[in-house]
């Protein structure tokens, strides 16, 4: 036995988790195909709608932006869900072998974050083919934030509802409703919408596409992610307590 450090454990854990993700062809196909289908589909679908004075851009562009946010948020959300419900029993064995719960959470989080960055990059690349993005780095950050937010929400859904079908349906509904209401396609006279996970990433993303920088949205996005991160960490550590995980 030697003293294997925490960083080594996390690196080996993340490497293993990414291999597990990349070896599922369906997940890779979704990663590549979903942004194309959703961004183009949303853009095309929106051309049937009239433009209203409160809209900051033309409806087709709003549709594409909304599609980019949706594509970025959905896959990490589902992945976060499956990170919790499918690996929890093997994770429990890994914990008994020496990983502590915080290390396991970091491994799961880093994996979701890596996939979030990948899906955000693909979504931005697809969007940039048809929409001029004035501030690509900020736009990428906004998409990655949307992805990470739903990656964490997926982990929370998995903790509360550890079932693949039901959890996936909840995520489809959540991402869809959140994306639509946060997109600016409809005028909502309520500050409640600002609490939605995708509201501030949407604001930041739209400002990045327009070439302005909504620093308030950036701060709110960061704060929102921190809160989500804290809740997800607490719930994950609680879930992987040694009282009944193997019977979950």
């Amino acid at each position, binding site marked *: 036995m030697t003293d*294997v450090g925490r960083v080594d454990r996390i690196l080996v854990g993340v490497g293993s988790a990414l291999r597990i993700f990349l070896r599922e062809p369906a997940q890779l196909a979704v990663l590549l195909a979903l942004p194309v289908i959703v961004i183009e589909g949303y853009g095309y679908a929106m051309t049937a709608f009239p433009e209203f004075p409160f809209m900051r851009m033309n409806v087709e562009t709003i549709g594409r932006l909304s599609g980019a946010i949706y594509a970025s948020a959905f896959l990490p959300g589902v992945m976060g869900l499956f990170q919790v419900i499918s690996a929890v029993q093997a994770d429990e064995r890994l914990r008994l072998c020496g990983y502590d719960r915080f290390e396991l959470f970091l491994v799961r989080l880093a994996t979701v974050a890596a996939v979030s960055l990948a899906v955000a990059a693909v979504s931005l690349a697809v969007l940039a083919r048809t929409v001029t993005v004035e501030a690509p780095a900020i736009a990428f950050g906004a998409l990655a934030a949307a992805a990470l937010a739903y990656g964490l929400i997926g982990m929370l859904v998995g903790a509360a509802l550890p079932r693949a079908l039901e959890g996936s349906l909840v995520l489809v509904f959540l991402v869809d409703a959140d994306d639509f209401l946060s997109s600016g396609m409809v005028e909502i006279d309520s500050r409640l919408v600002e609490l939605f996970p995708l509201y501030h990433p949407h604001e930041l993303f739209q400002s990045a596409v327009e070439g302005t920088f909504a620093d308030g949205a950036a701060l709110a996005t960061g704060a929102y992610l921190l809160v989500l991160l804290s809740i997800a960490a607490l719930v994950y550590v609680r879930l992987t307590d040694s009282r009944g995980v193997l019977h979950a």
Partner: protein
Amino acid sequence: MQNIRYMPNKKNVRRVGDADLDGDVVLRADGIGKTYDSVVPFVGRTVEVLDGASVAIEAGEIVGIVGENGAGKSTLMQILVGALGADSGEVAVDGTIGWCPQDPLLYDRLTVTETFRLFGTAYGMDEEAVTAARDRYAELLGFEEFLDYRIDRLSGGNRQKINLAVGLMHDPDLLLLDEPYTGFDWETYLSFWGLTEQLTEQGTAIAIISHFVSERDRFDRILELTDGTLTDVTDRDPDAAAGRGSGNAGDATTASTEVGAGD
């Protein structure tokens, strides 16, 4: 209630003081109780699985735990290893633990080599030690040709070999094995028992959940789990012991025989 949690990684293991464990005792459980309640109130049944189960295992000893299907053997083992909390009682352990669960708890899309690396890292083993352990158990249990195979592409028997080897690879002081030879071919089954002899000679304590009456001679002691408590039935007439009829590997005489599953 004292709930001792422990990890095989020696740096993290929580030990009780020598005064708490007598002589060569490496594991002691006293008065373990466990009841499964329905999650939803007023619906489902409350099942009392363990009711004051106690056991002590010494270094170099091999103990069989038998009992009818549903008696609570796997629940007891999960409590001993720290995977499940008990409602009452306490567990004390002095040393590192290796656990082979009944169902392989592995990552399906990792290869065998990657699985050893991941769990070896968890145990605190460096790459050289992991490779040495992997190769040793691959030769002993006969899975050398499958090192680059993904876990989900292995047969049930080979998956179980990996499941067992992961529990053994860090040379623990105490082995807790839940029907470890399910699906093994006859040669591997014999290799397994040869390995347990070597390990006990080195001082490793072993507890095995077993269903096979014919294996009685291989154990120093046999404990039967009935009505939530453990009773020493080592000297009892084998025909009267629980677990009979679940299978009898000792009757098998051909090399192609596969060892069957219990509950």
